[in-house]
């Protein structure tokens, strides 16, 4: 379980995200919804410790992450799939996956189940990461994060720029994974969110303005905010 209390994060002088509270439970898919520029990516970067941020609580199960540098947070169990995937372009698919082992404290082997989830990766193991298509890179980015054997998997707009059939596949993978870990997804593709999420937060200008179970949340308000 990822517990966040009063997280603020930003760039340079000001903050973009203010006093954000959020919980991502094991066994659930938690969604953070917001339109362009709402601060979704900034929130995730704050969680990873990639930008200037502060939090009263930033805890993964019992581990306090708030004082840790980024690499220690990854080792403590956050698997991060960033917006734009950020595959290492000059490294092979195999090596991209192996990099995930750096944050895996239990194993030094890329697990085989990943190739059942994403058969395409097995086929392209020796190809440069940068030569994969966008959808393939997204799958690689998810697989790479899974190699770390995370307690919470964090995905930043996994559907962005990806064709419907691959979105479908990714949705199935996420549903399959949720029994094993907490999953936190940043999205603005509402249909996808409504398909896979259990609990939703709505982010507006760096503040959470609405939250609730997927089937209880005020869908009209969410739609209205996204359409603004």
């Amino acid at each position, binding site marked *: 379980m990822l517990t966040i209390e009063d997280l603020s994060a930003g760039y340079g002088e000001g903050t973009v995200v203010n006093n954000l509270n959020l919980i991502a439970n094991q066994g659930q898919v938690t969604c953070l919804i917001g339109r362009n520029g709402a601060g979704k990516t900034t929130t995730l970067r704050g969680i990873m410790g*990639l930008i200037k941020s502060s939090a009263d609580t930033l805890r993964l199960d019992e581990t306090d992450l708030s004082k840790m540098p980024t690499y220690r947070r990854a080792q403590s169990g956050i698997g991060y799939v*960033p917006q734009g995937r950020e595959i*290492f372009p000059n*490294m092979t698919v195999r090596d991209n996956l192996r990099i995930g082992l*750096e944050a895996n404290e239990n194993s030094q082997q890329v697990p085989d189940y990943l190739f059942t989830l994403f058969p395409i990766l097995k086929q392209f193991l020796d190809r440069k990461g940068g030569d994969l298509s966008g959808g393939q890179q997204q799958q690689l980015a998810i697989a790479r994060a899974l190699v770390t054997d995370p307690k919470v998997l964090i995905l930043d707009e996994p559907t962005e720029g990806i064709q419907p059939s691959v979105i479908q596949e990714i949705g199935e993978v996420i549903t399959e994974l949720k029994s094993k870990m907490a999953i936190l997804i940043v999205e603005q593709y509402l249909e996808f969110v409504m398909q896979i999420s259990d609990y939703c937060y709505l982010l507006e200008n760096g503040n959470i303005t609405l939250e609730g179970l997927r089937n209880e949340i005020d869908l009209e308000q969410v739609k209205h905010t996204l359409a603004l």
Partner: protein
Amino acid sequence: MGTIIMQLFNGVSVASILMLAAIGLTITFGLMGIINMAHGEFIMIGAYTTYVIQNLFQTYLPHFFSSYVFVALIASFVVAALLGYLMERTIIRFLYDRPEDSLLVTWGISLVLQQLAQNIFGAPDVSVTTPKYLQGSIQVTKTVSFATDRVVILIIALAAISAVAYMLFKTRFGRNITATMQNRKMAASMGINTKRIDSMTFALGTGLAGLAGCTITWIGSIDPSIGQDYIVNAFITVVVGGAGTLLGTLFGSAFMGVGDTSLEFLTNPTIGQALILILVIVVLQFKPKGMFSSKSRKLND
């Protein structure tokens, strides 16, 4: 025919020394993007380390004197790597993404190190005695013979570049270096301690300079400014070969070494050196990123 082969070997030999001096730069300059003006001084440190080891053997282990070379090869790498590690931890790490400052600061460090060497070892040249098996030459035909020490330097240079290539492309450490240099934030997000990688990578670069310093003690005397004799050509080698690629360093040093000696042989030393610099400019006109362009994003951006 004999003269031509000897001349060619001469060029290859110059190239191999240049290559040893340049591999470390390929890593710190090409891969990490730091202009380390003190790189030459790590060559100097390796040379003086060899001198000290030789003296220690002369005093304490005279019976084993001829094996000091092996100890010196390792020690020169280790000492230069440790000092490089220290320099990264205390100074260089504040200079990433500040190329102008790093240029000035490392130049300052270069002067300080030269002065330190002068205080410790004195300004005049010192030299080491090479063991017998490195003197003499290998007779190939009646008219062709290669100096043994030069052959050994060539072997060491090739071994060093192969070892670095293996390390970069086949080991976990190399993979983490590549990931860190390609995308630092993502590397950290995958659990890599990128600051540690920076220090270790820089130390590797200076360690290789130290190794180069050890080998040049066999072909000449040592003084506090010996690094300055190599630094300019080493930088040119890395730039013309393509910063950040080992293949570039290999071909860059061959180009500079064989080209320079051949042109000097065909004309005279002054004109030869001018011609090779003109050739470098021509190459960079057509291939601004060097013969083999960089794999590191740092320099592509």
